[in-house]
């Protein structure tokens, strides 16, 4: 019974994490794009004048899309048409089952591993599920009964087939190094140090594999420069051209969910997952009191600094808008003062005297935070690349996939195998 409860809790955690990250990523994408392109970005939607730097926009978008009319083409294949967005979204969410987001957490004396399903074939599961997402795209393209969506579906299929293989080959190198298909083993293996100072991260032992993998992941998430299935200037909007309202929103959210997964996979396979370099778990547990104290002080200091910035803005921009927006900096300053106050109040509880149970929780928390930080960084990388590069052409993408990436992947595998055999 407890195991069912544990698993449900972990699934819940992931659901909240992904959906939360999706909202944050949409915001990050729009603000990031605006930053790169010398624009302001979203700054209109507000709740009582508080715009949260545009964070209210994704919420407003959701409401807009929920209440929009669902326009569907008359000659669609109804069953497939309706199934496609759900398939894409479900597949996007299910990859998460095998990704470890922390080592373990001790709950009531039980060691609960922080992964929803610790499969012995986790890596194969990831590859299998990842290719399923294409079916959703192809179904959407076919069932919409439109030439542009159809072309989008074809592009998605060919792209998927081309990059699936190099992705698999890249991961095989990793499997040779860590001798396991289990994701928890791969991450645990990355906690070691090479020659006592270099973290044994995937990117260190498999640099070429990392490059192959990251490109394949970009191709699999259908993001620029591989956004051919959408190819907005060529085939209008590609596979989701005929979707509107919440069905479109599902495709839209699935794109970001895929980004979260792509980022998580990069972090898990090549950047040590939840591992913090030079800070293995026993060390964290031994010094939990010190770490927690420093952390609280750090949070307090940073929050105070942010609060100061808000406070200065409040003084400078007094009555600038003449409406509810004027409250924004004051509320912002107040919020960050509260955070700082909370952190300082935590110090009253003498965190340096923390016991073993608390130490375990601190260690788990730190690891989860390290994981999320890595995921957010790589998600930002996705955004950064999207707004920097042009789009490939269909045949150039095939060329890269089959004639460059595939031989490189094979070479990487052979060299890794030879090195492993010798060492």
């Amino acid at each position, binding site marked *: 019974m407890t195991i069912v409860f544990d698993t449900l809790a972990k699934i819940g955690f992931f659901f909240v994490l992904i959906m939360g990250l999706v909202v944050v990523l949409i915001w990050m994408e729009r603000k990031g794009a605006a930053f790169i392109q*010398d624009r302001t970005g979203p700054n209109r939607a507000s709740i009582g004048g508080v715009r949260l730097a545009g964070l209210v926009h994704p919420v407003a978008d959701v409401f807009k899309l929920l209440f929009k009319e669902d326009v569907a083409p008359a000659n669609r294949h109804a069953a497939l048409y309706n199934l496609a967005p759900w398939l894409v979204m479900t597949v996007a969410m299910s990859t998460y089952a095998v990704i470890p987001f922390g080592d373990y957490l001790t709950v009531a004396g039980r060691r609960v591993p922080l992964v929803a399903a610790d499969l012995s074939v986790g890596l194969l599961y990831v590859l299998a599920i990842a290719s399923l997402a294409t079916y959703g795209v192809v179904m959407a393209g076919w069932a919409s009964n439109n030439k542009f969506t159809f*072309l989008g579906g074809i592009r998605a299929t060919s792209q998927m087939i081309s990059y699936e293989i190099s992705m698999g080959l890249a991961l095989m190198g990793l499997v040779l190094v860590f001798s396991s298909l289990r994701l928890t083993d791969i991450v645990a293996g990355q906690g070691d140090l090479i020659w006592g100072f270099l973290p044994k991260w995937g990117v260190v032992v498999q640099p070429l594999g990392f490059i192959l993998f990251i490109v394949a992941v970009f191709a699999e998430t259908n993001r620029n420069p591989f956004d051919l299935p959408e*190819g907005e*200037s*060529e085939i209008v909007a590609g596979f989701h051209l005929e979707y509107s309202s919440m069905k479109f929103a599902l495709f839209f959210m699935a794109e970001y969910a895929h980004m979260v997964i792509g980022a998580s996979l990069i972090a898990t396979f090549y950047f040590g997952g939840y591992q913090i370099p030079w800070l293995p778990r026993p060390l964290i547990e031994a010094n939990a009191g010190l770490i927690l104290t420093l952390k609280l002080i750090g949070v307090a200091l940073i929050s105070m600094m942010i609060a100061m910035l808000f406070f200065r803005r409040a003084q400078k921009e007094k009555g600038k808008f003449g409406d509810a927006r004027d409250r924004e900096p004051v509320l912002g300053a107040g919020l960050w003062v509260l955070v700082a106050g909370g952190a300082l109040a935590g110090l009253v509880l003498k965190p340096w005297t923390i016991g073993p149970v608390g130490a375990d929780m601190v260690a788990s928390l730190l690891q989860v935070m390290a994981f999320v930080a890595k995921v957010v960084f790589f998600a930002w990388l996705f955004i950064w690349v999207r707004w920097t590069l042009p789009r490939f052409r*269909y045949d150039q993408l095939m060329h890269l996939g089959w004639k460059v990436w595939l031989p490189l992947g094979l070479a990487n595998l052979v060299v890794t195998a030879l090195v492993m055999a010798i060492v």
Partner: protein
Amino acid sequence: MSQKLVERLQQEFSGEVQAVSNPQGDETIFVGRDKLVDVLTHLRDTEGCEQLSDVVGVDYPDRDQRFEVNYLLRSWKNNQRIIVKVAAGEDEPVPTATGVYRSADWHEREVFDLLGVPFDGHPDLRRILCHHQFEGHALRKDYPIEQGQECSRPEHLFSDQDINAAARRATNLVTELEGAGDEIHPSDLLTVNLGPSHPAMHGALRAEVLIDGETIIEARTEIGYIHRCFEKEAEDHTWAQVMPYTDRLNYCSAMLNNSIYASAVEKLIGIEATPRAQAIRVIVGELSRIIDHLVCVCANLVDVGALTNYWYLYNVRESIYESLEKLCGSRLTTNYARIGGMSHDLYDGFETEILHKLKEMDKGNSDVMKLIARNGIFLDRTVDVGVINQEDALSFGYTGPCLRATGLAYDLRKSSPYWGYENYDFAIPTGTSGDTHDRIMVRMAEMVQSRSIIVQALENIPDGPLNVDDHSVVMPPKEKVYDSIEGVMNQFKLVYEGIQVPAGEAYGFGEGANGELGFFCVSDGTGNPYRLKVRPPCFPIFSSYAFLAQGGMIPDAIATLGSLNIIAGELDR
């Protein structure tokens, strides 16, 4: 040199060619219809006239042969122009020039469409600007302009026979390339409409493509979606009233359009703008060229998926538009030139403001170059895409950056300078291969040259009067109107009767942002144009689009279209 051309032609075709006197100095000859193709072929092969700039039909209902068709030829090699005239009565076909110049195809279709002159032997004589259900010919003088017509049925550009033929051709091609290939059935081919409403079609253009996979086997284009018969509208207005319509032709570089129109009319009147007005025309013209190039390049980069560059360039355009708005009061369809001068002088601080904006332009351009110049994906997408060689480009009537991208240093500002362009020091950037990449890079380089011209012009802008001192052309100043009887009369005549342009015809042209922009003006001495024909640079360029798109893929076709800089406003008029 110039007078000799007509003489040489008269010797060559003894008695068949008559010289027509033209006070504006345009070489003009008249030939019989049966000799037309011979004369054109001779001009192309022996006299070096590589290009047919335009075909202009004019309707004179009172004459025995009511239609006069003018062939405007241009030689880049010998830097000369000649106008060849033929006359045709109603239902008397003119032999087609499509065998001599490829650009004749669309130009003749236009004359057929708007005037109803049939062309004998034309391969595809259909309407081009008007809808296929449209009846009558709008530019005939007896066309009832009040009459409305309902045109509702869309036209399929490919019939079943066309698709079958295309499939056969594709099969042959595959067999030729790969030895033995699978047969391509007509059912393997998919017709896809790119446009008229498509994110990458810049304006309402339509290209129907026949694709196998994503490879375009055959493409056909249809234009005219925003045709409003500007030329007919012009006949109903005074010469000065036409001015605001010219902005709407190429709305990306409106000031160039109205300056060149003003020059064309000035040429017909026989006056020249004052040095100050000319310098101002150069400045605003080059600013317009920069704006036009910025829009073209940034939209082209969006077409290949590099969205960020759009803002780096578009912000600059926006900022330059602020100055132009200050200058003339409107934002997009900026209107500043007048026949005989400009509407008013520059404002105080214009110079420093423009110099500042040029710095912004440098920043935007260098940011973009950093992003694209050595970007492998960008190079893959544009190098050797949409290639046209020099010979084809000339035959299709290419001018401007698209022609220069093929390696031909041909610029009207150099070859036949106007507005004092001979006094400025600037280079003509050229490409080498005539592909999309070269077209983008030529535009980027031209912006630098335009910048240098503006700086030179701002430094040396002459003082002196802005407008010509002739109040039968330019409105008299208000104090003259109030204080003198001549002033009142001048004002009255100009407002009620318009500028009295002497009867005659003249072809005024200049280097528009996208190539040769010309106005063929015919006046009968009344206040209105008798015939005003625009030679939009992108009309002949777009006529080659189907040729460029064939054999490439859909993304190539999109990238190519962006680099051609087609402006629907002047394409469809």
